[in-house]
């Protein structure tokens, strides 16, 4: 890349014309990307939600050559990828991040980034399989990623909008509803985080048709589990205007 082309690409991406910058970059050779160009383009693409650039840079440069990318930037890129329907990317971001952090002592920030990347992966799966897979599958992915997080951070329903939406779609069907209730019973994996099951409960309560059904779900849940934090479930009951004592 000549200096001229390089500064043109940088200028376009700084001025928000990501598609121009991407078009220019595509004309160049594979090995032409340097540190400055790569990180400027990734950061601007994440800021301007330009998913094409993110996907191109990822598949052509970052992933095959295992280039280091900051965790914060990965989180932003994952957020863009999730809502621009590049649903395979978040899982790869997470894998990349984990590969780079194999032996590092975890700082609080690392934990946050890990949480965020895993959350987006779960969300991306829920979004991608909104209508196609059963609730059980989404729950399994959720348990695999979120439940195994070290430190067991609180998991809240509000952080999983796509998953909640997918739950609603699944619960519309009668057999799925039964399956959701069955999830309270036996679990495919040993659940480590005390916030996981209450999140499922709150998600189901958010979509039940009326207070009678909600009471039944709550009773079912109580039969199996006690002493779990039901903050989200209470909030959902209040928001929906049911009069149930939790």
């Amino acid at each position, binding site marked *: 890349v000549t200096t001229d082309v*390089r500064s043109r690409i940088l200028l376009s991406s700084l*001025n928000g014309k990501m598609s121009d910058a991407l078009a220019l970059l595509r004309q160049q050779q594979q090995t032409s990307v*340097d*540190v400055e160009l790569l990180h400027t383009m990734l950061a601007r693409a994440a800021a301007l939600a330009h998913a094409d650039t993110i996907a191109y840079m990822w598949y052509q440069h970052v992933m095959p050559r*295992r*280039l*280091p990318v900051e965790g914060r930037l990965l989180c932003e890129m994952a957020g863009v990828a999730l809502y621009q329907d590049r649903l395979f990317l978040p899982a790869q971001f997470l894998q990349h991040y984990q590969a*780079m952090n194999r032996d590092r002592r975890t700082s609080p920030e690392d934990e946050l980034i890990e949480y965020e990347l895993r959350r987006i992966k779960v969300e991306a799966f829920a979004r991608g399989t909104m209508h196609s897979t059963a609730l059980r599958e989404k729950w399994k992915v959720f348990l695999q990623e979120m439940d195994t997080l070290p430190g067991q951070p609180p998991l809240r329903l509000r952080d999983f909008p796509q998953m909640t939406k997918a739950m609603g779609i699944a619960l519309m069907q009668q057999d799925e509803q039964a399956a959701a209730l069955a999830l309270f019973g036996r679990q495919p994996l040993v659940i480590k985080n005390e916030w996981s099951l209450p999140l499922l409960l709150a998600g189901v309560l958010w979509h039940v048709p009326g207070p009678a059904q909600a009471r039944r779900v709550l009773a079912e849940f109580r039969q199996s589990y006690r002493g779990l934090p039901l903050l989200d479930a209470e909030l959902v009951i209040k928001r929906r205007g049911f009069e149930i004592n939790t």
Partner: protein
Amino acid sequence: MHLKKGKRSISTVWRLLWKRFYSVNSKTNMHFSRSRKKPVTNFTRTNGLLLSCNGDTFPYLRTLWRYFNAPGNLMFVTTNIVAFMGIVTYNTLVTISSERAFEEQMMAAQVSLAKQREELETTALSLPRDIELRGEEDDIKWEQPDVAHVREDPLVEEQNAKLDTPIKQYTLGDLILNKRENVTDYDSQRAKASIFHMLYAYMLYRDVIQPTTMTQNNNSEEWRREVELLTKGKEVQGTHRRIDVFYDLWNKNFDKIVTSPEKVQNFQLPNWSKYPTILKFICTELHDNSLKTLGEFKQFYGKVRSNEVKKLLGLWLYDHSFLFPHNIYDNRTEEDFYDILINDSMQDNRIFQKYSSIVMNPYNERTQLFFPNVNSPSVNKPVPSISLETYTRLLKGYINLQETGCKYDYNDNIFKLISILKLNCFLQRNKKKHAGPTVRILLPRDEDRSQILGTISQAEKRTCYQILSKNRDVVALLKRISDIQADSS
């Protein structure tokens, strides 16, 4: 009666006024003589204001008049009045002129506003008056304007360009281009940064701790000054020589310095022209080597002559082997490298034990890195295997340890090695025709062991044992073992 009263009151008022203005009163003299000092007290009571004097003080104006009447005072007061009038006049003139200027500005502004408004109304935004009345109908008719169409309108374009946006538009002048740095993959760059940091720290540490010897005289002035800065004001004892202690400290405290992706990406070898000779050499090699695979690390290791550095690199590699990618089948050179490492660490108990654990413990993940795999159909996954030569070297190392270092007992390890040799050996057909089959030793994990070993036939085992019995190294080692047993019993 009213009228009468009115007449009377008017005449009274008139008289009073007369008195006030001219201070002519038949009794004035008497008042004056009676209370000479009263005005002072009166003035103080009424805050010295003449206007707020009540009727009682009225006669004392006479005093004022007398005071005023004196020739010197008259001059003084007149001068004051004249000066005051001058100031007032000047002030008024200034105010008037500034007001006029302001008015002129206002006029000009109004004129220009009117002109602008006229322009706007005539050109771009001529909206019908009754727009509010037809609002809803308009909304229905209204369509999204075509973006391309808007672009074509030069007037709008021009106005659009004139408007400032809060988002900064960068131009070529704003751009400060840094030096071009090629992107490098995380693992190799981190390995370089880590090795450089470790060796730099070690060289400083060694020079600080050692008393000034002739080796230091070769060093540059800058390096010596850096060492002096560290030694200044501290008691430095010259007892070290434990490289593994240094390594442990460094690994614990400083290895994590260069792990964040940002730091790794921006890592650059500094200008090494002033460093000691060994460090200079290492920097050059690190710079030239891309250090992406274990093979490249082997090259780097092979070029190093210093024993200390070799030891450090050996210790480092054991802890950082994950930075190198695994080859699944073809890692013959890696096995050679393992052989070299074992050979080099023969003298150093600690490194030797670390590396031998790669063979002894099949769950050690470095096994996959160093040893070529044999695809075993019975478990359907690659199983690492080690050559007989390397294995005998390992055995020899343990026997050496048992013979020399009496601190620990290595009998268990030796016994385990021999039993592995006996159970896990198999024949590998050589691709070259002239050489016969060679013996290799499988290193399966516990869960796969019985399945894999079951596939080795008795005939194959027998051939293996025949080859083993002809191998001089093995036989010599076994003899040494039996001697040790005889000694200890």
